[in-house]
């Protein structure tokens, strides 16, 4: 690459920086670019393609899809919170068949790298979804949203129990194309996220996506009732960023070889860099896309500058860099 980055230095002077090799991998999925959309924050890419070229970012992570069409929950489905928002959409979607025929077909024709997110109400449903996606072209990876209630276990969320989480990943692994990496998407609403990461890794997950939203609630002071029709909702946005960085750090420390797709409140390139330094191999930009529809592209450009400014020539060198040992003081020794 002979591109050069130009950014503005102190007093607005132009600073020329060497281009950074931004390529990275999530398991066997090699991507030239590290910034993705986040599931549920980009639909299936078409709308955002009006604001930036979606083939220029790492890829599109599609809204979690289930076997059948889903209407989702009643409104209000969202509430604004300090530096964030609550949502309770209820996985509205067209169902897997219509998704493959329309959304995935469009993404493939558009040439966008695509990570398909699936969600189920039972272990069996996840397995069936994986089977549906087997032999379908144009899928770079499958993200498994396990933050769903298990209808066969009193609505207990899969992501909150290591055994259920592992069962889902096994079912997906068994039914999917061996060449397509499986990314388990974890919930931060657990006592120890490392336990869950270990369980899904043992079950065959090729990577983890960290983090999904954390459960929250707002009371509307006019009605003096919960602001959301669904009562509770998922909190996202910059408000949860420190929690997300902590989760990435803990998982990378315990499982340094498990690739991480990091997310939670990424607003700019420097936020993304925190995730990379904590151990993420790639990142997703979610809620901030609602604030700035070109955010994924902008964050990626800013991340490259942020890396270059710190002397990195490849993104890979920066992954987990914050975990390195203490800096050895430079002693000016004359070498013989």
């Amino acid at each position: 690459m002979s591109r050069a980055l130009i950014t503005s230095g102190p007093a607005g002077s132009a600073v020329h920086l060497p281009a950074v090799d931004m390529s990275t991998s999530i398991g066997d999925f090699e991507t030239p670019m590290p910034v993705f959309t986040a599931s549920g924050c980009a639909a299936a890419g078409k709308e955002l393609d009006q604001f930036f070229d979606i083939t220029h970012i790492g890829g599109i992570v599609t809204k979690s899809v289930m076997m059948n069409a889903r209407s989702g929950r009643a409104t209000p489905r969202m509430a604004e919170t300090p530096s964030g928002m609550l949502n309770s959409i209820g996985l509205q979607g067209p169902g897997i068949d219509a998704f493959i025929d329309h959304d995935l077909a469009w993404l493939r024709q558009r040439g966008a790298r695509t990570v398909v997110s699936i969600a189920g109400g039972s272990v069996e449903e996840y397995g069936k979804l994986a089977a549906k996606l087997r032999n379908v072209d144009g899928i770079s990876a499958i993200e498994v949203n396990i933050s769903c209630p298990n209808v066969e276990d009193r609505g207990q969320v899969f992501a909150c129990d290591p055994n259920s989480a592992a069962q889902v990943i096994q079912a997906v692994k068994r039914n999917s194309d061996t060449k397509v990496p499986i990314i388990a998407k974890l919930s931060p609403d657990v006592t120890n996220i490392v336990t869950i990461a270990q369980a899904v890794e043992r079950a065959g997950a090729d990577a983890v996506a960290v983090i999904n939203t954390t459960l929250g609630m707002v009371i509307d002071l006019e009605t003096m009732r919960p602001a959301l029709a669904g009562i509770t909702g998922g909190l996202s946005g910059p408000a949860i960023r420190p929690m997300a960085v902590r989760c990435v750090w803990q998982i990378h420390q315990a499982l340094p070889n498990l690739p991480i797709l990091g997310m939670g409140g990424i607003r700019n390139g420097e936020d993304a860099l925190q995730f990379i330094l904590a151990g993420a191999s790639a990142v997703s930009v979610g809620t901030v896309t609602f604030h700035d529809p070109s955010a994924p592209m902008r964050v990626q450009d800013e991340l490259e500058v942020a890396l270059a400014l710190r002397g990195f020539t490849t993104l890979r060198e920066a992954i987990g860099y914050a975990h390195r040992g203490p800096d050895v003081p430079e002693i000016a020794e004359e070498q013989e």
Partner: protein
Amino acid sequence: MAPLQLTGQVLDVRRAGMYTVLSLTAPGLAERTKPGHFLNIGIGGEESGLLLRRAFAIYQVQSRGVYGGSVDIVVGVHGKGTQWLADRRRHDNLSIVGPLGKPFTLPKDPANCILVGGGYGTAPLFMLADQLRERGCRVDVVAGAATEEKLFGTLEIKRAASTLTVTTEDGSMGVQGRVTDVLDDVITKTKADVIYACGPMGMLAAVANVAAARGVYSQCSVEESMACGIGVCMTCVLPVIGDDGVTRMVRSCVEGPVFRGDQVRWSDVGTVPVDTLGAPTGGH
């Protein structure tokens, strides 16, 4: 045409009753805007803790001039975000995304049209009235609000209308009551073919019912709370009956904000009717 994402500079801020009218530079926006389109504006600058953009119906657009085009919106203060916007001054910069949504559709042949606006819901009706008249349509306006100061632009819209009927709930201006108290009469007098409406949900529901009862075609521009305004988040949905007769939860930001009055399930807004495609089935 794809929406634009641009930085607009505040050209002018003026008060109009309870509202603030902001004029912003917006090169290229006018050429893309049709009556009923909306735009959304980022609140509080780049590091703002208020992440969600606020949506506004496009009130006026100018395609030429020293600024290479500008746009006017009407801001009603509902909370912190809209208060921040109403406090802007000349030369401040704002992040604009638009035009967004599906606009009103105009009749092919000259028709008799009634435009109904509730509160600042009259804002998108000015451009609509002009374009309808250019097509040889007759335009009559009904504007209603709780009080006189909650009406917007009644003097101005008079110029574009054959008749203007004003209602206020407290009787501070025009007929005391609601728009639907006078609508039946206006329909009869004008032999209306089409009703266009913009305003609060309750008013739209009532207008759509009157239109249906009188066999008049209606289009309503809804105001749902929106997180993204561009179709990616699914927060802004309401139950709408499709041409195939099936009810779906549809996004008001991309499939609306303008809907056919007879296709929205007004009394079910805020719920998921049991016969909606993909509605939760009994059991879980």
